[in-house]
């Protein structure tokens, strides 16, 4: 559908995108994920042919765009784009949605039905005669999606479509995106800095940071098997412990770290120096004297800090190395966790993951 080969983009001497190669398959929802400034928006603008990359090659379907002499307008008419902040044209919602049809010379009569279908799709049936400037941010973003979908694009690009919206509008827009995929079969490429949203909506994710592609994979792969320390931190596997693989046995690697041997589930043989990534919410704390020493990963540690973190409590431990656990409030209260207390931290070998060190 869309193929980027070693795409690079520089502006005013600054490298915004560095050697990006990805391929989006027809019909999938593909997510570009990463913190702001990672180059997601630039990449999506390049794929929508709004700007030309400074290097690399780009294919839309089987047309190589970068070869020059391509009719960009014709290609753009097969794609749709929803920007982070929707642009509002003067006039009513009907005009805002029908603009793309007008540009293609569609007759007003046939356009009306298409616009009404698009408005129904985004849950704005009957909004046609409303002045666009009177709508809320969430409604405007849905108008922008209807405007892009009304021309039945084969690919829909979304650049942080819910970045400035309240949770309710966000949910509505996520539903629309899901329906565009299932009902219309639209291929969707979306940029988001929101990991949850990426997981909820996308078939595959490309994690970006500072203009480079860090990892591509399904949400589960990215979440559970981050390939670099950077991705691990981004997906919240914030405990990163360095060590050396001692031996492997039936899918479990034993990693020697400072003072401990940690058991970690592996899916392929690993050797040498590695980093163990442990998600803080996979760590279970208990009283130091009730430590189940028969379980593989039991660490003794001293609480150094306790902080509230949304519905959970973030407990920082010193186990020879720093370790952070996220526990439920009831656990926090029943263990009377407070700085200085000795506790036992246990995690399942399946709750951790190995990152090869390079």
């Amino acid at each position, binding site marked *: 559908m869309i193929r980027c080969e070693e795409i690079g983009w520089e502006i005013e001497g600054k490298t915004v995108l560095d050697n990006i190669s990805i391929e989006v398959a027809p019909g999938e929802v593909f997510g570009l994920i990463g913190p702001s400034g990672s180059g997601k928006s630039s990449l999506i603008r390049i794929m929508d042919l709004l700007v030309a990359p400074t290097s690399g090659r780009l294919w839309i379907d089987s047309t190589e765009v970068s070869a020059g002499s391509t009719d960009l307008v*014709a290609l753009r*008419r097969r794609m749709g784009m929803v920007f982070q902040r*929707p*642009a509002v044209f*003067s006039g009513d919602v009907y005009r805002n949605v029908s*603009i793309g049809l007008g540009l293609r010379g569609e007759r007003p009569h046939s356009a009306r039905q298409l616009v009404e279908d698009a408005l129904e799709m985004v849950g704005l049936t009957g909004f046609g005669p409303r002045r666009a*400037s009177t709508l809320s941010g969430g409604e405007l973003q849905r108008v922008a999606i209807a405007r*892009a979908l009304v021309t039945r694009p084969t690919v829909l690009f979304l650049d942080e479509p819910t970045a400035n919206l309240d949770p309710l509008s966000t949910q509505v827009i996520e539903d629309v995106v899901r329906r565009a995929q299932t009902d219309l079969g639209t291929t969707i490429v979306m940029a988001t800095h929101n990991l949850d949203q990426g997981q909820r909506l996308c078939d595959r994710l490309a994690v970006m940071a500072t203009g480079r592609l860090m990892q591509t994979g399904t949400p589960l792969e990215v979440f559970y098997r981050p390939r670099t320390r950077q991705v691990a931190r981004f997906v919240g596997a914030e405990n990163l412990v360095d060590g050396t693989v001692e031996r492997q046995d039936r899918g479990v690697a034993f990693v020697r770290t400072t003072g401990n041997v940690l058991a970690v589930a592996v899916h392929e043989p690993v050797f040498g120096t590695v980093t163990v990534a442990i998600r803080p919410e996979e760590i279970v704390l208990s009283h130091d004297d009730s430590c189940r020493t028969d379980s593989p990963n039991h660490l003794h540690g001293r609480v150094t800090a306790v902080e509230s973190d949304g519905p959970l409590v973030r407990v920082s431990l010193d186990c020879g190395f720093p370790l952070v656990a996220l526990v439920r409030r009831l656990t926090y209260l029943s263990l009377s966790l407070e700085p200085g207390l000795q506790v036992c931290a246990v995690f399942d070998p399946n709750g951790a993951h190995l990152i090869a060190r390079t």
Partner: protein
Amino acid sequence: MVNEIVQGFIQAVDLIVSLDPEVIEITIRTLVISLSSTLLGTAIAIPVGGIISLNEFRGKRALMYLVQTLYSVPTVIIGLLLFLLISSSGPFGSLKLLFTSTGMVIGQTMLILPILIGLTIAALEGLDRGLRDTLVSLGATWSQQLIALLREARFALLAAVAVGFGRAISEVGVAIMIGGNIRGFTRVLTTAISLETSMGNISLSLALGIILLVLALVVNFGVNLLQGGGRR
């Protein structure tokens, strides 16, 4: 002393209400000349401003700066320049435009062209950047982009036209130097007010002054209204 001013005012109002032929004639000539230069200027400024605004090229900033600088060229400089070009010894002397209303239209067009172009550019640049990105992403050709963006900027463009007309109708430098205040031929509101006053025809001056002031304020009111419309 104040009495005489009041007297003048009463006579002035009388001249307006009784539709004094000379007052009517000067007013109509003024409107025709200023409207002509505004239309001519707009016809040039909108495409030129549109091309400057929608394209990226080297020296664009310098060009926009130049256009803005030309806003403040004094009217007498435009008058002097045009005088040199169209006086009998100038390169366009054979066209015999000096002391004609056509010459005045050309002069006023030269005077207001920079601000018309500048405000056209400002009107387009003042639009949400996202509008153009959206149009491009929807597959608009270059000319479709220009038309759609001019439509979005229509209030600001109309305000620009009104500003140009207001300048043309109030200026006195070009009118006096190129028109020459010839009675029944090139005399307009500003030149008549300026010269009749010193000749002591206070009631005529006042009548024309009231008309000019009303016209200027109506145009200004229109500009404000249009700028408000653009903001809404």
